[in-house]
């Protein structure tokens, strides 16, 4: 009787310690989560935005580099989801994607901060350029630098395309695999409106689910 009492006490004491440890750890995790990296978001978005020559798609590899590879904020798969969302909604892809990444890292505050930081560099640069844009447009040195950068932009995007292709082909879905060249042809050769292409692809996917459900029942 005495012995079991003692062992019970030990067990409950042990439980208490474990619970305490869990609580402390939970609190620590909470603190860690609460300490949102706002400053980092501001810096990284200013930086990325200042270097996105050549269109919004260049932001995707940049965000991959800093958010996925360096800081492990989220998985590459998630980045591709975000890119798809940013692309499918109106507005500049670069700004939308920055806001989404900011939201994923630090909630609404993160989204607002990222969005504002992403817009500031073009705002300042355009402000300076618009003051004397005639001289800027005809400047040979700037033109040469930008001509070189076009090659870099193209390489960045092709690199991204290869990774995205691998990711989608991995799912082994005939419909999705056919959709890639389909959307390309519709946009590049036929010049169909981007919104129409996206809506059509959505409908195709919904149709596929309906068809599969009907087959089952």
């Amino acid at each position, binding site marked *: 009787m005495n012995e079991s009492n003692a062992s019970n006490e030990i067990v409950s004491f042990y439980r208490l310690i474990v619970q305490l440890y869990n609580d402390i750890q939970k609190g620590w995790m909470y603190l860690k989560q609460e300490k949102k990296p706002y400053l980092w978001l501001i810096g990284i978005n200013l930086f990325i935005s200042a270097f996105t020559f050549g269109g919004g798609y260049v932001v995707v590899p940049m965000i991959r580099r800093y958010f996925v590879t360096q800081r492990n904020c989220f998985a590459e798969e998630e980045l591709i989801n975000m890119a798809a969302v940013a692309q499918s909604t109106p507005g500049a892809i670069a700004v939308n994607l920055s806001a989404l990444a900011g939201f994923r890292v630090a909630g609404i505050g993160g989204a607002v901060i990222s969005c504002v930081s992403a817009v500031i560099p073009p705002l300042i640069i355009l402000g300076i350029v618009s003051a004397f844009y005639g001289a800027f447009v005809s400047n040979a040195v700037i033109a040469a630098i930008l001509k070189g950068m076009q090659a870099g932009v193209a390489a960045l995007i092709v690199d991204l395309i290869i990774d995205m292709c691998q990711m*989608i082909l991995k799912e082994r879905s005939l419909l999705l695999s056919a959709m890639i060249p389909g959307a390309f042809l519709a946009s590049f050769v036929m010049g169909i409106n981007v919104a129409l292409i996206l809506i059509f692809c959505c409908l195709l996917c919904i149709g596929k689910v309906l068809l599969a459900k009907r087959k089952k029942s």
Partner: protein
Amino acid sequence: MNVILVLFFTFLKIGLFSIGGGYAIIPLIQEQVVEKTGWISEKVFTDIITISQMTPGPLAVNTSTFVGLQIAGVAGAIAATLGCVLCGVLLSLMLYRFFQRHQKSIYVFEVLGGLKAASLGLIISAAVTILMLALWGIGTPTFDTMPDWFIATMFALSLLALRKWKVNPIIIMIGTGLLGFFIY
């Protein structure tokens, strides 16, 4: 104040209807700021496109900043840019939240998959345009003239560096810019 409000709402409209981004939205912006309101001339608009290609940042944001500055100074620029960005960001956040909440739904899963595949197709389309522009200096495919071999080599080297050694994209941008400066 009135002008600033008009700027804000005009660019709100541009932002709301510019799906896909990039060069697809040029006609839309043109219709609003050149033809309808007469804020800037055709020539200035063409210049803005050129400047946009030269400077970082999305075309719509650049145009809104430029037009806003010309019409109503710094306040105009901020109002126009805000209007331009607002709808897109809000809608993307909402759509993203929606997808996150209904992750388990088979419809959401399939639609997101479809959007990913379609986006990829569109990105390829943009990439081909950029490559054409870099190699031949024009946006439409013609194969009569030889491509620019310096650019082609630089493109191949950059791609190799990215694939093989995972070089930082910023270094690629600076490197290709410097090479362009020395070659041309």
